């Protein structure tokens, strides 16, 4: 490992002053929600620790995670990719191709056995022995297992690797399977979203490289620092929700006033992510700010939860368009009719009995 430079070495080599380096450490501590006392620790770690090699593999996915990642504003993806991590293999970002790329892949695994981080974008399809996704002439699932065997930890980038995303939506013909259901014996950190927020991705990597451990995770294995609150909890339109002021239809007056998108099917109340605080594209905006409800892309199986535009979504189990209210009202209607019919028969029987007993008495 000694031949790998430390983060500090690389930064100094790139002409970054000691002063700028310390500023960077403070900013990183603030971004990760750490106390100022952690700044010297970050600095010390960066001065002494060799950069951690990262292998980044791609399964069934759309590369939106990579697209997001390279747009990180802070820390700049350039810094992360070039200075902080030693990205030894990433088939979409690396210059090498073909046999040279595969050779680099094998070499990294061999050289840094048990010390590299495996970042997985996308997921392996398991149906037909994994033939639905071939990379480097082999099913992706084999490559994943091979790379995971000697990894220190695994990062599941995006909804694909974390939950399966659109290719795992019903009926999931290729049997696309999230990483944690294929690799059982390694610590896995899920960074869901379609894609995840760029700053969240770089923040997670920064944390893991700086402290050499996983950040605190929630019960699903997502980093708590970014996924512990719902979009709804920090939404700037929340006052309109509490006031009962909603967008009733697209482009109505309420939409122009920026009212709450709850009635338009916004999934903010059931979605854990940092969009409403960190936002996107250097903090320019996020879906709700742009006038569209949250679609819940960082939640498990979000494609299968009915329409993006309904609050009470359809239940596909019934085969027709029916939501909880329609099902419930139908049940209540049937029972109500049953009760009425039963009451009628009861009254009829009672009247009959009365007539009979009057006859007997007579």
């Amino acid at each position, binding site marked *: 490992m000694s031949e790998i430079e430390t983060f500090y070495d690389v930064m100094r080599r790139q002409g970054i002053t000691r002063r700028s380096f310390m500023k960077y450490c403070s900013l990183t501590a603030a971004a990760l929600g750490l106390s100022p006392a952690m700044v010297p620790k970050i600095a010390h770690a960066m001065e002494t620790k060799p950069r951690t090699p990262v292998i980044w593999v791609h399964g069934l996915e759309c590369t939106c995670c990579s697209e997001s990642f390279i747009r990180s504003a802070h820390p700049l993806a350039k810094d992360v990719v070039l200075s902080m991590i030693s990205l030894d293999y990433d088939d979409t970002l690396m210059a090498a191709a073909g046999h040279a790329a595969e050779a680099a892949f094998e070499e990294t695994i061999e050289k840094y056995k048990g010390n590299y981080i495996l970042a997985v974008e996308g997921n392996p399809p398991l149906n037909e022995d994994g033939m639905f996704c071939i990379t480097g002439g082999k099913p992706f699932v084999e490559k994943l297992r091979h790379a995971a065997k000697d990894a220190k930890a695994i990062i599941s980038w995006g909804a694909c690797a974390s939950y399966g995303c659109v290719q795992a939506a019903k009926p999931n013909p290729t049997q696309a399977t999230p990483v944690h259901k294929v690799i059982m014996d390694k610590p896995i950190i899920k960074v869901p979203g379609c894609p995840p927020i760029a700053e969240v991705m770089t923040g997670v990597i920064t944390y893991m490289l700086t402290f050499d451990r996983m950040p605190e995770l929630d019960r699903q294995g997502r980093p708590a620092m970014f996924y512990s609150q719902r979009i709804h909890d920090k939404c700037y339109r929340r006052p309109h929700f*509490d*006031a*009962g002021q909603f967008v*009733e239809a697209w482009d109505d007056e309420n939409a122009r006033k920026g009212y709450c998108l709850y009635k338009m099917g916004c999934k903010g109340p059931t*979605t854990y992510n940092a969009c409403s605080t960190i936002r996107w594209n250097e903090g320019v905006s996020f879906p709700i700010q742009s006038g569209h409800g949250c679609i819940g892309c960082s939640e498990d199986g979000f494609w299968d939860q009915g329409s993006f535009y309904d609050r009470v979504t359809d239940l596909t189990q019934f085969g027709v368009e029916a939501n909880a209210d329609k099902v419930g*009202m139908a049940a209540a209607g049937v029972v109500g009719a049953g009760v009425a019919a*039963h009451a009628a028969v009861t009254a009829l029987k*009672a009247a009959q009995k009365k007539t009979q007993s009057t006859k007997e008495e007579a």
Partner: protein
Amino acid sequence: MTDTSPHIGASDDGATQASRQTSVYVYEAPVRIWHWVNALAILVLFGTGYLIGSPPPSMQIAEATHQFVFGYIRFAHFAAGWILTIGFLGRIYWAIFGNHHARQLFYVPILSGSFWVEVWHEIKWYLFMTSEPKKYIGHNPLAQLAMFFFFTLGVSFMIVTGLALYAEGLGIDSTLYALFGWVFTLFGNNPHIVHTFHHLGMWWIVVFMMIHIYVAIREDIMSRQSIVSTMISGHRTFKDDKPD
């Protein structure tokens, strides 16, 4: 079936030999108070719960800062939910320390053959296949079965899913979330699914409510014992002296 200790009613003053009614003290005060508080809580929960799923039309009373319409609807839902929850816990306490009628809500004697025979008898009674119902001091066996599956299990489900959803508002580092976070794992790790099932649960309780009220009134008229007034006074009175 019963050991009706004869309680001679007011009619037994010798003046008239009309209907001599016997009565048994069945529902103790805590059970009766719980029943009506619980009923009220369910009504509030149903009304506000429906509105949380399908909010009322937007209102323009004041600036959003000074307007809290949806907030109050949610507040009423949460407050009624806590009353229901604490009431239910109190009811469980009373099932342990109250009389044996207080326990009927929480178990079904599935291993008792005579229980199922009586259930069948009650079903026949409701299908108009038998002309004379039996006397029961507590719930009749069919009622006990329905209460357990519709009400006890239904309300338990609503309390558990409701507390889990409420815990989300408190935050994932709250004690309540630590206690009920597993609910989300159970429902596919997506809180939206829990919302949907909580919503379906609402209709489950509504269906129970409709049947419960209809049957209570019908039995009050048709059966051989009092029903509705029993949940007010606590006394079960019988309309005839004939054996079970």
